[in-house]
């Protein structure tokens, strides 16, 4: 009889020793952190003096990343709850078009148009979720149907009502509105003016804005992205509801048996995804002043890609909002950065594919550590 592997007397044999290093490795956002460092190192080396890291350049990739983050937070929580939403992109186009039709065609005050659109779109999200939990059909199929339904209406309605597929003039309507700046405004303008005056950031050389900084504030889009990340992170890691989300996606039967309202959790997550898509749409409409029938094309996949790079499992029950946010950051920085590095835009997809594959392989490896499967 050999006692070589006998645990020492003062430790509990039921608790397996895990080193701090190993513990750090099984965090879902590890892939995102490694990727973020790699991507920034890469672009600092290859594109440092290309304008990517001047004030305009930073604002450029930050806005694009923030867009991805907004839809990635919703997609991430939904994916952890075990479902997909492929209608996100169409929802963005649809929500934007609704605001345009309500405010421009029907001349409603912009704040009413925005609120009604939020109600309408989250209701569609709830309907999506209700069909999924009621029929037991894969959410992949149900939301694929809504991808087409919503896109169809987005092209059809403005065609019928205005005989065109891009409705503009929303900014004129939004003038003086109290809710519009919450989505389309900018904050910290004074700070940026000061930095411009101090010569820390670039200023316009000519035109009516000569002397003003080229970047004149932080767009609300970025504020929304950060707020949604914070909300999602706290909800997921600090609340009982967060545990329910993990449980619903991990093993719904076991969760139901232990009293988790799985259906309610899933429907709420579909509503939250729709809410995020609507935030995206409202910010876009308030920034650009028009809604188009082709807005948001393929954005659903971009959201899912960001979430997957961020370490969430496609099978549900595992992932983190911070990881998804980092995934979105990587996505945005790579998409915009390759341009600054002077790479052919068609090769962007090759690079994205390589990152996606690398992230998935890394994530699978991490999952094996956790579950112990070989």
């Amino acid at each position, binding site marked *: 009889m050999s006692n070589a592997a006998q645990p020492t007397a003062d430790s509990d044999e039921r608790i397996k020793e895990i080193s701090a290093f190993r513990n750090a490795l099984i965090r879902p956002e590890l892939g995102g952190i490694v990727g973020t460092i790699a991507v920034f190192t890469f672009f600092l080396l290859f594109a440092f003096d290309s304008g990517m890291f001047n004030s305009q350049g930073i604002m450029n990739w930050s806005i694009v990343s923030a867009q991805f983050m907004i839809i990635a937070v919703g997609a991430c929580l939904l994916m952890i709850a075990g479902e997909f939403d492929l209608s996100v992109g169409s929802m963005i186009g649809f929500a934007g078009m609704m605001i345009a039709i309500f405010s421009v065609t029907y001349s409603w005050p912009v704040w009413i148009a925005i609120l009604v659109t939020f109600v309408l779109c989250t209701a569609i999200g709830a309907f999506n979720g209700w069909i999924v939990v009621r029929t037991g059909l894969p959410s992949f199929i149900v939301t694929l149907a809504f991808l087409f339904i919503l896109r169809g209406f987005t092209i059809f309605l403005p065609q019928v009502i205005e005989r065109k597929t891009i409705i503009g003039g929303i900014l004129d309507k939004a003038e003086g509105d109290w809710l519009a700046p919450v989505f389309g405004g900018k904050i910290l303008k004074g700070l940026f003016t000061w930095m411009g005056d101090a010569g820390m950031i670039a200023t316009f*050389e000519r035109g009516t804005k000569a002397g003003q900084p080229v970047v004149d504030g932080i767009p609300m889009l970025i504020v929304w992205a950060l707020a949604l990340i914070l909300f999602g992170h706290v909800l997921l890691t600090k609340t009982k509801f967060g545990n329910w989300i993990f449980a619903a996606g991990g093993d719904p039967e076991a969760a139901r048996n232990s009293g988790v309202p799985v259906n309610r959790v899933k429907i709420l997550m579909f509503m939250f995804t729709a809410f995020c898509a609507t935030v995206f749409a409202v910010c876009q409409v308030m920034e650009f002043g028009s809604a188009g029938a082709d807005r948001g094309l393929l954005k659903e996949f971009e959201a899912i890609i960001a979430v997957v790079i961020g370490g969430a499992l496609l099978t549900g029950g595992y992932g983190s909002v911070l990881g998804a946010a980092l995934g979105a950051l990587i996505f945005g920085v790579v998409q915009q950065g390759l*341009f600054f590095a002077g790479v052919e835009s068609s090769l962007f997809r090759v690079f994205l594919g390589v990152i996606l594959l690398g992230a998935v392989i890394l994530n699978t490896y991490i999952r094996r550590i956790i579950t112990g499967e070989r």
Partner: protein
Amino acid sequence: MSSKIKKLALATAIAAVPMIAATTASAEGEKYILVSHAPDSDSWWNTIKNGIALAGEQMDVEVEYRNPPTGDLADMARIIDQAAASGPNGIITTLADPDILEGPIRAAVDAGIDVIIMNTGTPEKAREVGALMYVGQPEYDAGYAAGLRAKGDGIGSFLCVNHYIVQPSSQERCQGFADGLGVELGNQMIDAGQDPAEIKNRVLAYLSANPDTDAVLTLGPTSADPTLLALEENGMAGDIYFGTFDLGGEIVKGIKSGVIQWGIDQQPFLQAYLPVVVLTNYHRYGVLPGNNINSGPGFVTADGLGKIEEFAGEYR
């Protein structure tokens, strides 16, 4: 384990290196960026790429072509911001939706970058955003001219096969044509989608439901090629009046064989080539043409196809 992560990071970096090497050879001189609204799938813009590449070569300047992969105009606005941030000497861009693009273009102009509007937009809009000039074909006017011509040929009704319904300028072509004819556009314009089989079958369905249609108008090779097949299939080829925008291999063949009466050539090659030449000469010698340049509409008919046939889809 950490070595695996290192390897992964390394592999990612290595995978990217050939792409950096594949970038446009940096010329000493000026740098110009052309930003279009076209999705990757639109083959018509190939001529634009050829045009800008040739101009870059001949003028010895660095040129780049950028577009939003899905044709999303909001993405295009970001690309213009991005192009401006990288500090080129000039930006050549389309004005597919003034609401969205005006801001970024004006910001680029104000930041000291010379801008030329090409292809989509109007001379008025180009002036408004502070661009040097407009090079292109006013779409409504081109459609209107085509409508007048068709009216002269005795046409009273038509089918407009719109394969890019979300793009306002494509509707202006149909609307201009209807106004030129002096008829209501109504449901004579169909949303054909981008898939050739779908386009073909929608044209067949429309023509069998509306057999009295006098003419077919297509808006480019994407819709013209499947429409040609549809007309061959239902026996209306050569019988129905057929006009199209833009040229391409099949369209030129159709014009030659008499199935297509005319093609409206807006000369994409010139739309890409001329701005680079204009900008380079402006930056080197301070010379600038005093007016906008209309690259189209030019009607291409069966008479005198010669070079057009040779270079259709490449430089024409």
